[in-house]
């Protein structure tokens, strides 16, 4: 029930732009010394794509999720496998994301982390297009809220 409520609350905090909707990670209950997984949900508008974190063309702007992790410690951020898409402008396919997907970040909770409610903030930078048009790169803030017991 608590999980469901957290997930509903996260959905309520979703941010939307013309190109995508970002759902921040659900609020988490943490304990010192453990590792926690935070999932950022992304839904791309139909017909559009964003470049993957490794788009395979030096001029394309990759998808990035960076965290100001303190007092937690960022261990890792994992992107899903991209979709390979043929384009008219590059001899090689480009790696993109479309539809709905999640970016997963893992945080360690240090023994020194202060007890109580807290949050860390991330920045999601993306650049997206459809087959005929592209939107300029944009950065939006993502918040991961938690209660450290």
């Amino acid at each position: 029930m608590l999980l469901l409520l957290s997930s509903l609350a996260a959905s309520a905090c979703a941010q939307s732009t013309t190109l995508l909707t970002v759902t921040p990670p659900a609020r988490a209950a943490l304990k010192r010394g453990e590792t926690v997984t935070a999932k950022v949900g992304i839904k791309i508008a139909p017909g559009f794509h964003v470049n993957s974190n490794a788009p395979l063309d030096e001029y394309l702007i990759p998808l990035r999720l960076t965290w100001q992790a303190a007092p937690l410690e960022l261990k890792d951020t994992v992107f899903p496998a991209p979709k390979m898409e043929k384009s008219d402008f590059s001899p090689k396919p480009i790696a993109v994301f479309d539809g709905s997907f999640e970016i997963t970040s893992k945080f360690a909770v240090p023994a020194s982390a202060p007890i109580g409610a807290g949050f860390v903030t991330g920045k999601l930078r993306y650049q997206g297009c459809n087959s005929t048009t592209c939107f300029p790169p944009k950065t939006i803030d993502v918040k991961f809220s938690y209660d450290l017991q």
Partner: protein
Amino acid sequence: MRDGYTKYMLARSRALLLIPALVALVACVGTTKAVSPVKPESQRKKAPEFTLKDSNGQPVKLSDFKGKVVLLNFWATWCGPCKVEIPWFIDFETRLRDKGLVVLGVAMDDEGWDAVKPYITSKKVNYRVVMGDDLMANLYGGVESLPTTFVIDRDGRIARTHIGLVSKSEYENDLQQLLKQKSASAAPFELAGR
């Protein structure tokens, strides 16, 4: 009751009547998407004047090209569809420059010339490129997506705006129409404040 010859003649007439219809059908199917004309002169609005710098730091003003047809293309190195158009614009600049065309690229990369110079060098871009910014985008009605291209007539008026990738033939059609038109007056470009 009709005899055999009459039946043959009737069938032949019907077949002959079908020919024009078939020709029209084939013509429709065989033609690519109909190309729209540029705006009538009476509906064209003045293109806002601007001053931006090219890759050598030289100022470039729209009014420098008075009497020319200008293809003003907003683009960026990160924009895939823009890259499809660039070889077309190189071709236009080569073929149509002597007829009075100027192709002018407005690069919208946040990283500036560090990103744009290597790209235009590697792609052998033969037309002038200037560095754009938000002010320039706003001046042209808030360019929100790329590519966005304004086709400007010899009198500095916007004859056509293309948002997104269109076909090369569509540009070719615009340019050929405008290049045929003579400058109506020596009217100066509108001086829009920046």
